[in-house]
């Protein structure tokens, strides 16, 4: 099954993990300490986030750190910006129409 960024943000625990890692890279153990869920559950979420490519694994010595990958979230931002611009432009056209009504 192909993962994408929408699966990443679909779950509240995964959103919380992303919020944590947006501040700085962490080891899996450090991430798990922030949650009441079992380590295994947190690992599963980390795995999904990595498959969605919003997290990137980096090894430093014997430790693995997970980093947030903002690039992957950009595709949503680009579309939202287009959608916002479209509404803004249409509303400006509506102003002109209302002036003539």
């Amino acid at each position, binding site marked *: 099954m192909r993962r994408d960024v929408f*699966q990443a943000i*679909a779950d509240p625990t995964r959103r919380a993990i992303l919020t944590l890692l947006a501040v700085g890279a962490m080891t899996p153990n450090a991430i798990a300490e922030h949650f009441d869920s079992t380590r295994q559950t947190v690992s599963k979420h980390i795995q999904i986030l990595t498959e969605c490519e919003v997290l990137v694994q980096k090894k430093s010595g014997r430790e693995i750190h997970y980093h947030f990958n903002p690039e992957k979230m950009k595709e949503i931002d680009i579309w939202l910006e287009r*959608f916002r611009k479209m*509404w803004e432009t249409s*509303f400006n*056209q*509506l102003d002109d129409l209302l002036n003539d*009504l």
Partner: protein
Amino acid sequence: MTNNFVFETDLAAKKIYISREFNAPVEKVWRAWTEPDLIEKWIAPKPWKAETKIMDLTVGGIWQYAMVGTEGQRFWVYAVFTAIEKGSVISTMGMFCDGDGNPVTDGPKSYRDTKFSSLEGNRSKTDSVITFEDEATIKMFVETGFKEGTTASFDNLDKLLASE
């Protein structure tokens, strides 16, 4: 005069909030949102044009229009009215369409609720909430904008938007 355009997204809640003020009484804004010949004058960002196919402003009625590009490309917008309070509320359920404008009835849906209100000084305001049924819906919205074949059209739109 400031128009207080607000566009806020809450992806976790699968919602987009859009509000805007207008320097016109709410009755006129309502007409501009509900009369096909008026809707066509503003809803498509130029040089795109809107062409209404169906506008049945009743609960359960259909609203369908095409956004037509300068090279004849068409994006269909298809919605069913789920609530109407004359002069104050319009709710619709949106569906995706194939290239010929046929709605994909078992596909993902989106919902839009718009409230119209009066402001002091003969002014008015619209507040819209767009809700995506699930992450698959918002995903389809995004992919529609990136899909091969429509990319060229959106490039045109980008140029248009960049020039403004």
